[in-house]
């Protein structure tokens, strides 16, 4: 039987790569490598990455709530130093299986049959997963960057749906999940550059506890106020938590890095 072998949350702050202020960052980039080593050691064969479009891929004429990419992948298409826009190993059969399961479970997801992903998917795919083709990726885009936002509860339920899907798969695939996104950050607003460690701690404490109730009880207004518009990306963490109920969380690294605009949190969630 296929199973979920672990989950991770990690940021994708472009400034970590552009690094215009030339701040020390090697210790942060090393965490992606550390996670990649963990993924390799877990024997993972598939990865599902939850991320947000940043008004780069999907325009005002079509804004999906949930989108699964089912075909060939490459990215990130937005140029980031040190993160190549390169092919990403995919598995159309697995992706289509997830789509079919979603459609049978009350999630009418959209699909992309060919996709150049942005940094939300591209950073973890290129840095936190083996790039030798041993782990095939399925990107799941959630409406976390552009209104109307996916409801927090639905993001969590999406993770539960993924858990059911993987549990019903034939074979012995080993699946790793990644919730991609910064914690507190304000993007394109007058607060940009502010980081709120208190909000970040609240989110990370919830992940460590394995109890999503703190996050699910937040309103979007609270998240905007305390975590910024970028903080809406906690939806991706909730998806991972939904797929790993009562999982054992551990913070790998947290830093309110002065060279960027995001609370950078890296965490691991292991199955209960």
């Amino acid at each position: 039987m296929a199973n979920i072998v672990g989950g991770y949350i990690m940021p994708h702050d472009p400034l970590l790569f552009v690094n215009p202020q030339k701040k020390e960052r090697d210790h942060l980039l090393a965490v992606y490598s550390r996670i990649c080593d963990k993924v390799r050691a877990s024997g993972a064969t598939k990865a599902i990455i939850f991320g947000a479009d940043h008004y780069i891929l999907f325009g005002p004429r079509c804004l999906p709530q949930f989108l699964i990419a089912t075909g060939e992948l490459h990215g990130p298409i937005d140029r980031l130093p040190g993160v190549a826009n390169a092919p990403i190993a995919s598995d159309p059969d697995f992706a289509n299986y997830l789509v079919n399961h979603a459609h049978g479970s009350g999630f009418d997801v959209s699909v992309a049959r060919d996709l150049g992903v942005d940094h939300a998917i591209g950073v973890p795919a290129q840095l936190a997963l083996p790039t030798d083709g041993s782990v095939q990726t399925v990107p799941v885009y959630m409406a976390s960057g552009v209104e109307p936002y996916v409801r927090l509860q639905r993001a969590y339920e999406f993770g539960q749906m993924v858990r059911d899907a993987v549990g019903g798969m034939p074979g012995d695939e080993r699946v790793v999940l990644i919730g991609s996104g910064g914690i507190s950050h304000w993007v394109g607003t007058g607060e940009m550059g502010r980081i709120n460690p208190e909000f970040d701690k609240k989110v990370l404490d919830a992940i460590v506890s394995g109890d999503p109730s703190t996050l699910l009880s937040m309103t979007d207004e609270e998240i905007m106020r305390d975590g910024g518009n970028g903080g809406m990306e906690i939806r991706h963490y909730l998806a991972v938590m939904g797929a790993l109920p009562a999982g054992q969380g551990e913070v790998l690294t947290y830093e309110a890095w002065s060279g960027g605009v995001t609370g950078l949190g890296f965490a691991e969630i292991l199955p209960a």
Partner: protein
Amino acid sequence: MSYGAVEQLFYDVSTSRNRKEAFREDSGEVAGKYALSETEREMVISMQVENLFEYGINPMLLMGFWTSVRGPQSMPEYLARVPKLASRLEASSGGKDSL
């Protein structure tokens, strides 16, 4: 109200090199290709980020539009001019369209 048309223009300028160069050359002509009100047209061609933000344009898109047209070196000016999200939250008091 043609809020969506403003965002479409910004999206096109941010993601299409041809549309970006066309906007830089003649912002009025590009704006004329979209169904904008006169107020919207003025905000767009004058790049009034203060008013566009208050109008409810997605901040990521607004920033992307600005840096596409003015270049990344212009970010300090953008950040000096763009309002805080807190001001929008206070103004909306839960109005979802302006979050």
